[in-house]
């Protein structure tokens, strides 16, 4: 027996996964425009952020409506709760992409550190890939993939620490690099935050599958 609820849930599900894809692309684009010093691209990201926010609001509204109308329990309830929690996380990821874009526009330094910019580019690739992966784990209801995400996030933290060391050292040696390097620190922080958000979604996927609330990243609370 196919319930009307199942159809509406499938709709909700696909608009959530779509939002995940949009967010992953936005993050990647934001990091790319920073590395390429592409202010126009950055403006586009800032101007499009409302689309992610609107989608979040629409998904939330639909979830509240479904809870009120169908009073779901057990697996149905867990699926809606997972979407409701994870959709806010996606929206916050979008905000971080917008922050990266704002930094790109604001950037004042004329002298850059190529090595660090490459590292940031790699971090951006990695985190965008993590977002796509966590969304595909969601689609496949694959809770064990959450551990892979946590391991990647650990790698991302190490990269962020490396960016910090390199930037600080460069600033000590050459005062002209301070403007750019200060931005590198902030961008590394934004990317690291997106990584943490990815594990938050992974935790909700585990909840959806098992009903257990777990913590994948105990204790990594530094900005970078």
């Amino acid at each position, binding site marked *: *027996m196919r319930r009307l609820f199942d159809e509406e849930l499938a709709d909700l599900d696909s608009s959530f996964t779509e939002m995940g894809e949009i967010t992953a692309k936005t993050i990647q684009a934001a990091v790319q425009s920073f590395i390429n010093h592409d202010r126009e691209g950055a403006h586009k990201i800032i101007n499009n952020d409302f689309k992610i926010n609107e989608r979040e609001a629409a998904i939330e509204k639909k979830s509240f409506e479904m809870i009120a109308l169908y*009073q779901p329990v*057990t*697996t*149905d309830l867990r699926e809606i709760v997972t979407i409701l929690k994870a959709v806010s996380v996606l929206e916050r990821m979008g905000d971080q992409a917008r922050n990266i874009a704002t930094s790109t526009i604001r950037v004042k330094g004329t002298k850059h550190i190529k090595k660090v910019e490459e590292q940031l580019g790699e971090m951006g690739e990695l985190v965008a890939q993590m977002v796509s992966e966590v969304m595909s784990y969601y689609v496949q209801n694959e*809770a064990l993939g959450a*551990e892979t995400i946590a391991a990647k996030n650990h790698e991302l933290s190490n990269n962020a620490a490396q960016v910090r060391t390199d930037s600080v050292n460069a600033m000590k040696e050459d005062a002209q690099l301070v403007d750019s390097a200060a931005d590198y620190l902030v961008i590394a922080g934004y990317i690291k935050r997106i990584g943490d958000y990815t594990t938050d979604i992974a935790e909700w996927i585990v909840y959806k599958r098992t*009903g257990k609330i*777990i913590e994948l990243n105990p204790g990594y609370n530094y900005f970078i």
Partner: protein
Amino acid sequence: MTNPNIDLKPLSEFIVDEAPERYIYDMNSGKHEVAIATKGLQVRYGDKLALSEGDLSFERYKITSLIGASGSGKSTFLRSLNRMNDDVATVSGKIMYRGLDINSADIDVYEMRRHIGMVFQRPNPFAKSIYDNITFALTQRGRYTKEQLDEIVETSLKQAALWDQVKDELNKSALALSGGQAQRLVIARALALKPDILLLDEPSSALDPISSAQVEDTLLELKKDYTIIIVTHNMQQAARISDYTAFFHMGRAIEYDLTRKIFTRPKVALTNDYISGNFG
């Protein structure tokens, strides 16, 4: 800071793909006072086995809901607990209450029913006054003074949350009461015998949501002094008021656990399907 309520075990430990076929909460594992328990209970209507393996224990001063589709055996189980099935079915197995097997032949069924009262789906007040409805069973079997009867009427109507509405018209016919009031009168009538356990067979299925909520409030109030076992088709009602829930399917108790577990993460797939309306 790590939240102590959050699990940090490896994920693989959480994921159990092979759901058990059956999960029965073990009442003996914790500090629970068992009010009534069944052992190897089987009910046959003629050749047809309506209930098998009904091994359940019920905790004292708690509300337990029995849920399941029509014909799943939940009402048969409930009715067996105070021997209502004696005339229509063959009931074998043990029903342990205060150290006695109340399913044995030498039990005085009428005396037993004073301890284990039953309220039915449709409110069935007698065609008598409100007052007489409550005192009828008492006066049939014992001698009471007018003062004693007055006191019992007042106490049981208060317990059933009906006193304030009817105290000035106790001589009015019970048939003039609304559905919700009539059902609470029937509950008061059962309480007048000072039972220990109250069995309710879909007590609010014939009532509107407001009367139904009044009956639910009454039951929540009553569990301070009574052990309550209720059959209900209303999932939300089971979720709202009961401490434990047992799910019946094709004559067996398939899953029995704390209500909050049944409604958030049941262990058996059939339970999940039934309570999320995903059957068939």
